[in-house]
């Protein structure tokens, strides 16, 4: 395993070095870095040109200048990164530090959401091949696939952000909306869930009632002014999730798994009030991360203790349930500061942000800042997700369909295994193998999309750094962008290889 990872890393590193050389040379040759000085009428023209030449080593031929840059990067290994200076003599390392965090946040957030959504939708469409749901999703994913990201981003900004902010200034759901939205949601649910005949009618009615009830509840409690999940909502959602996850992952007949999952939900509900009104006020980002890890480890042990004789799947279930519960509680905590945030001096009642990665000068607790990050991430993430979502949906659908036609699926069915076991254990697991490759491959596309999205939303991220460098024919910022994104791509590819080996026992990493 270790030797495989090391070998892979060395091979990727060599390829990456070659790629950086190409990028450096192409960027340096893409124009004249002295163009603005040559046409200037300043009396010290010659001096300015000389100083910039000295600053950027322009007297060294491009083919060798690369090695000056590489030497600076090499210092990273002794802890003194030097990515060169920009045309205005700012150290790129400092600029990169500011830019990288917001872009990486965006890319990671968008990738993870797109993977989860894409997998769910892709797999459900494959299981219901040639249904109207399948055709609908196919058309929508083709549409998403064909959308220019910058165009969608501008639309989102105009309609979603400004429209939703207008709505939030006087948040009232009109009754006609309840009357129109409930049947639409009910039709969608009836189309998505795999029932037919009378059961489908029941699905329709249940979804109709649930949506109408939900919307009425939101309306009557003035939810959008005081958003909350509440302890009751947490208990209901948590129980539903416990049943859902156990049902898919272990089967509801596995009482031990169900009990373990419900215990986790119970603990979540029990710590709800102490967390919300107690110790959440004392949390710092690092202690919050620590708490999250502790929660997941604790959930793992609960599953491990209760899960005899088949411990691992039960532990997996409890960890997933704990993760979702933690997420719900965190969201509720964020909603708790919503009012403060929305009414604050800087936000002025327009919480969905259209510009930048954070509100400058915002004061408040960690939760306010976290909420601020999320409201800024919302639109760019949606814009980025749309395209990757289409890719993942198509690939996971095709992959599962391919797998489900294999003989061993027929064997599994013939053995009398339940449809759940056949799909989840025999089908899904094998279908994940090709998807792992696509995910690693797609990261380049997401980064490219991030450059465009950042521009539309005015983020001062790595896309801006890249553009700044390219506009001034200055390879240093461009290379800083490329080093970070390239390493990210290599990392994802490595993870894909390891996941590959985890999924497919025929592949041995040594």
């Amino acid at each position, binding site marked *: 395993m270790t030797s495989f990872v090391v070998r892979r890393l060395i091979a990727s590193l060599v390829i990456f070095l070659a790629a950086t050389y190409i990028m450096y040379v192409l960027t340096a040759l893409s124009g004249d870095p002295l163009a603005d000085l040559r046409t200037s009428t300043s009396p010290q023209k010659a001096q300015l040109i000389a100083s910039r030449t000295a600053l950027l080593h322009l007297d060294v031929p491009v083919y060798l200048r690369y090695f000056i840059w590489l030497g600076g990067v090499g210092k990273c290994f002794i802890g003194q990164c030097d990515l060169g200076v920009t045309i205005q003599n700012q150290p790129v390392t400092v600029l990169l530090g500011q830019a990288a965090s917001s872009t990486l946040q965006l890319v990671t957030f968008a990738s993870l959401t797109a993977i989860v959504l894409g997998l769910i939708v892709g797999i459900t469409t494959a299981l219901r091949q040639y249904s109207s749901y399948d055709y609908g999703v196919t058309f929508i994913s*083709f549409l998403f696939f*064909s959308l220019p990201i910058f165009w969608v981003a501008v639309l989102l900004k105009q309609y979603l952000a400004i429209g939703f902010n207008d709505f939030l200034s006087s948040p009232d759901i009109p009754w006609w909306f309840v009357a129109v939205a409930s049947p639409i949601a009910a039709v969608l649910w009836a189309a998505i869930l795999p029932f*037919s005949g009378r059961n489908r009618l029941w699905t329709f009615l249940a979804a109709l009632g649930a949506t109408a009830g939900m919307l009425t509840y939101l309306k009557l409690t003035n939810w959008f002014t005081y958003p909350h999940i509440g302890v009751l909502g947490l208990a209901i959602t948590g129980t539903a999730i416990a049943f859902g996850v156990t049902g898919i992952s272990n089967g509801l007949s596995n009482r031990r798994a169900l009990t373990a999952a419900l215990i986790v939900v119970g603990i979540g509900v029990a710590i709800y009030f102490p967390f919300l009104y107690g110790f959440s006020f004392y949390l710092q980002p690092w202690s919050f991360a620590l708490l999250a890890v502790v929660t997941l480890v604790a959930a793992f042990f609960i599953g491990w203790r209760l899960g005899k004789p088949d411990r691992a799947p039960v532990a997996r279930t409890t960890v997933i349930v704990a993760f979702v519960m933690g997420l719900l509680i965190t969201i509720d905590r964020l909603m708790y500061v919503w009012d403060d945030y929305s009414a604050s001096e800087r936000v002025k009642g327009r919480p969905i942000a259209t510009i930048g990665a954070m509100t400058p000068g915002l004061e408040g607790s960690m939760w306010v800042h976290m909420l601020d990050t999320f409201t800024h991430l919302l639109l760019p993430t949606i814009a980025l997700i749309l395209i990757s979502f289409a890719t993942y949906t198509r690939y996971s659908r095709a992959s599962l369909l391919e797998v489900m036609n294999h003989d061993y699926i027929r064997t599994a069915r013939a053995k009398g295994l339940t449809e759940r076991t056949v799909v989840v254990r025999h089908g899904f697991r094998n279908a994940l193998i090709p998807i792992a490759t696509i995910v690693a491959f797609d990261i380049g596309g997401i*980064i*490219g999309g991030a450059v465009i999205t950042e521009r539309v939303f005015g983020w001062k991220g790595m896309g801006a750094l890249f553009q700044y460098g390219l506009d001034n024919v200055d390879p240093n910022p461009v290379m800083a962008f490329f080093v970070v994104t390239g390493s990210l791509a290599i990392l994802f590819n490595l993870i894909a290889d390891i996941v590959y080996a985890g999924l497919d026992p025929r592949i041995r990493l040594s």
Partner: protein
Amino acid sequence: MPEPAPSIAEETNENAIALKEVEGLSQGQIVRRRFSRHRGAVISMIVLAAIVLLAFTSVGFVIGDWRVPGWWQYDWAEAVALENNGLPTLDVFHFVVGNHPFGQDEIGRDIFAVVMRGTQQSLMIMVIVGFIGTFLGTVIGAISGYYRGVVDGTLMRFTDIVITIPVIVIGAVLGRTVGIAGAPVLALVLGAVVWTGLARLVRAEFLSLREREFVDAARVAGARDGRIIFRHILPNAIGVIVVNATLLMAAAILIETGLSFLGYGVQSPDTSLGKIVSENQVAFSTRPWLFWWPGFFIIAIALCVNFIGDGLRDAFDPRQKRMPSLRALAKAKQGGSA
């Protein structure tokens, strides 16, 4: 009562029906027939043809110094007096086209003419990128897969290097260098960076096809490498190539519009759909039509090409069989037992 298992005769019978459908047809005929059965692809083909026709006949086009005039009254570069404050005159419900169906921009250019010119440029770039990318990908993949060994190793490492750089990034760098030289040059350069995925696929196809008996037979018969590659293996790999060529084109139009939006694509005074959107995004709140129409054409073209690619995939894939759904099976079972 237990159901009788399907006898062997019955199963062969089923196969015979499937075979009968394609009996006496050439490969091309089978593909055409299967393609025409894909409704989305056929509609997309018609729509795309209509867009091409509209774009090239309406405002005319330029080849070198030779200008072919079109039937539309305005030119994409000329500014005329603002009518009705530049509002679009197109009214679908009353069948009114009017003088400026897509409206005018702030200096009075007719947006219909501008969008048509942009569509021409984007279509042209799409086709050139598609051809160059397909050509390079096929050649590199074919050589790699056929010769294997050192050649393969070198070419594939080179592919790995190019694939490491996101297309939009290397496209932006190259576009900044050559964008000023005009749209065709930009297209050539973009074509030179998008071939990587196709090269890998073609290589994989060649690696498996070169081990087949018909290749051995050709080699024993004394065929040279070139003949084996082009006459024997390539026709068998054509499905993969054609399908990916269409997908490449769909990606190309999005890359081009994205680059033009960032300012590294087509340069003024020339225009493209992405450039129109980029120029007008600030005017969105005051003149949204400047923004809607180019976006609409980008989506229409990309969607059509994607659907055609999907249709081609279905047509070329011989394993594609319509599997009955569980519900259909259940229904058939009920019908059988009743």
